[in-house]
């Protein structure tokens, strides 16, 4: 698709957003993003169906599964225009961006038929069951167990997942569990698709430092799942989980950056209004934030370019570290622009947005792989430095 067609496509997205993100959906503008993820859940579920009606869910999926097989450039354009219009956080993100591609790659035909259409139509919301209390950044240390019930052929799952985003608003969860008693590390894991609404599952929200509760602990006590909900073979869990994680990167990046840009603009505007922009230190920090954002934009474009440039591949290992620290600093900058008055809540939704930004950006450098893990990965995989030894008692 050439630049001209891409512009037309962008205009189409922008028009659709303008025509639809209004009226009863108007309260959704800029809502439901990280830190605000549990906002307005019912209306956002309706919004998912509205998007589906417009053909904007799963636009990168192959046509045979209901997608539009958009090119990478088009998907990026869609994400950017969606963000530019203030589109709300997507409840369907996990299904569309992670589980769908995983099933397309590893699922049986039956699984595809059963699970893909409701994702595409915005009717079933998924969440992700990876992290565990004793395995924060250490996926190989999973302790949740799945055992085969010989009578029914079902799998019975017992254990606990944590940091499960939006579990309380979801219909299904995919879970990585240990199916081979006595196995350790990445071996002996199973990848399961489980309905959340059953008696073996309890969901406890985790209250975050900003007050919201978009994350949950999910407790499994002989929760049941039928054998046809195993993706791949028992024992394949690690490979499937790792592939799935790789889907997470890339496409949504430029849309995320569009959101960052909106936040930075808001900060710059408030700084001008309240006079903070006259402070040389604040002025420099705003300029620095802008420079960092531009660098992120071009870094994302180098990543998406998928060239054979090993330098770009190497440097893309740093992207998570780069954006999360940039965003954490932005959260602090927003508060410092508000100054002393930012310590007290007000009626102005703009200052409230900055207060929330401050709190939820604290988590950016932790979730999705802590900065410490990121630096290990860069050093070890990227720079070929010696691996960190595991302790003796893994």
């Amino acid at each position, binding site marked *: 698709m050439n630049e001209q067609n891409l512009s037309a496509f962008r205009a189409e997205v922008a028009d659709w957003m303008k025509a639809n993100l209004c009226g009863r959906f108007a309260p959704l503008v800029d809502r439901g993003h990280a830190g605000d993820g549990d906002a307005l859940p019912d209306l956002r579920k309706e919004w998912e169906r509205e998007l589906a009606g417009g053909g904007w869910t799963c636009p990168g999926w192959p046509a045979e599964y209901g997608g539009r097989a958009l090119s990478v450039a088009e998907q990026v354009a869609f994400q950017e225009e969606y963000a530019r219009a203030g589109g709300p956080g997507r409840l369907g993100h996990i299904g569309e961006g992670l589980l769908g591609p995983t099933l397309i790659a590893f699922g049986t035909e039956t699984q595809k038929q059963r699970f893909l259409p409701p994702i595409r139509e915005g009717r079933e919301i998924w969440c992700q069951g990876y*992290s565990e209390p*004793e395995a*924060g*950044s*250490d996926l190989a*240390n999973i302790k949740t167990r799945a055992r085969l019930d010989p009578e029914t052929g079902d799998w019975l799952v017992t254990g606990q997942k*944590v*940091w499960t985003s939006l579990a309380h608003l979801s219909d299904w969860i995919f879970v990585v569990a240990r199916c081979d008693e006595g196995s350790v590390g990445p071996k002996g894991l199973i990848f399961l698709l489980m309905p959340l609404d059953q008696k073996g599952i309890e969901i406890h929200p*985790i*209250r*975050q*430092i900003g*007050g919201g509760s978009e994350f949950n602990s999910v407790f499994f006590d002989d929760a049941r799942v039928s054998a046809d909900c195993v993706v791949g073979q028992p024992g394949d869990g690690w490979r499937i989980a790792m592939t799935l994680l790789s889907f997470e990167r890339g496409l949504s990046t430029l849309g995320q950056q569009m959101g960052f840009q909106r936040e930075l603009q808001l900060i710059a505007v408030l700084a001008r209004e309240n006079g903070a922009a006259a*402070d*040389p*230190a*604040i002025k420099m920090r705003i300029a620095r934030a802008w420079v960092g954002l531009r660098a992120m934009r071009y870094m994302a474009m180098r990543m998406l370019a998928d060239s054979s440039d090993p330098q770009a591949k190497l440097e893309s290992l740093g992207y998570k570290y780069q954006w999360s620290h940039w965003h954490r600093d932005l959260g*602090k900058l927003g*508060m*410092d622009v508000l*100054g*002393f*008055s*930012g*310590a*007290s*809540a007000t009626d102005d939704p703009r200052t409230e947005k900055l*207060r929330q930004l*401050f*709190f939820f950006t*604290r*988590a950016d*450098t*932790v*979730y999705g792989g*802590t*900065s*410490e893990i990121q*630096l290990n990965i860069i050093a070890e995989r990227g720079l070929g430095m010696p691996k*960190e*030894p*595991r*302790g*003796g*008692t*893994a």
Partner: protein
Amino acid sequence: MDLSLTEDQLFMRDEANRFLAERATSEAVRAAIASGGFDKALWDSISNELGWCGIAIPEDAGGLGLGAFEMVLLLEEIGRRLAPVPFWTTVSVCAPVIRVLATDETRLALLGRIASGNAAATVALPRPAANDPFEAIEFNAEPDGRGWILSGRCAAVFNLACADLVVVPARLNERPALFAVERSSLSAIAPHDTLDPTMPVAPLSLAGVPVGADARIDRGDLDTGDFAAPLLWARLGLAAEQVGAASGCLELTLAYISERVQFGRSIASFQAVKHRCAELLVRIGEARSLLYGAAACLDAGGDDVAREIEGAGVLASEALWHAAEEAIQLHGGVGNTWEYDPHLYLRRAQATAHLFGSADAKLSRLAEFLQEAAA
């Protein structure tokens, strides 16, 4: 100048530490947060039983007659646990204002009340974020037959809801005057929803509130510049609470990471983590050193004490911020939950970062001090 701690000082600090470790536990702090950020029982113990409020009040007013250095030691311990008591506003903000600016008569009476533990106190600072919080005075006083009528509004008064005594600066014939207002004479207080629930803030609105003739406590010749001297104590005290809080936050973090295991090792065994904790200790040590130096200067009556206190404010505020940011990061996932304590320190760090000016504003003012001195 001797910066060693005497045996008495060491004993006092250790006792304060021990006492607060028992009484200002995480559970107690959280219980106080749920009820407005004030632990009444703890305050009664501190002010009444232990008599800490008299630490820097002269003996003639019933205090212990000790100095800024001892005040700092106590505030560090209060800050270490974010103890939800109005100690700073009472001892560092209000008492010095009274001591320096009040008439002899009111001074003895009011300081006596504070020293004896019978008054939690605060000052309605008109501009808490400004270098000179009295650069504009928001209240007006008018004489009426029996006393005075006070009117005006102050956006943010620390510990207002739990104070017994509020010192209100007001304009009277274009000059500043000071009024001691009993909290009981004020209407209901509606605290702000603030970042830091352990240090509550509320607006104070006075719509023609009558107070008695004896409510006026200043000597009648106040200039706005006169507030600078007592405010040194407020600034120093704030820095002391911040340094203490930074230490408490580092302790919290060290305790967590020495227990928490990842990849089969305690988090504390990772060298990158060790180095970051060590750097934090260096920064806290730097801040504490300047804090102690500034306190000793204040006690010694040196000329340059304002600069030392300004510098201590910068380092203390930054050390606390850095400690809180690292605490959240090194706690990993749970560092971002309400249930764990790092965010309480983060809240304190950010809520106090702009008091008396941001670090950048303080540095910029220091640069001007230095240029004047060098010129």
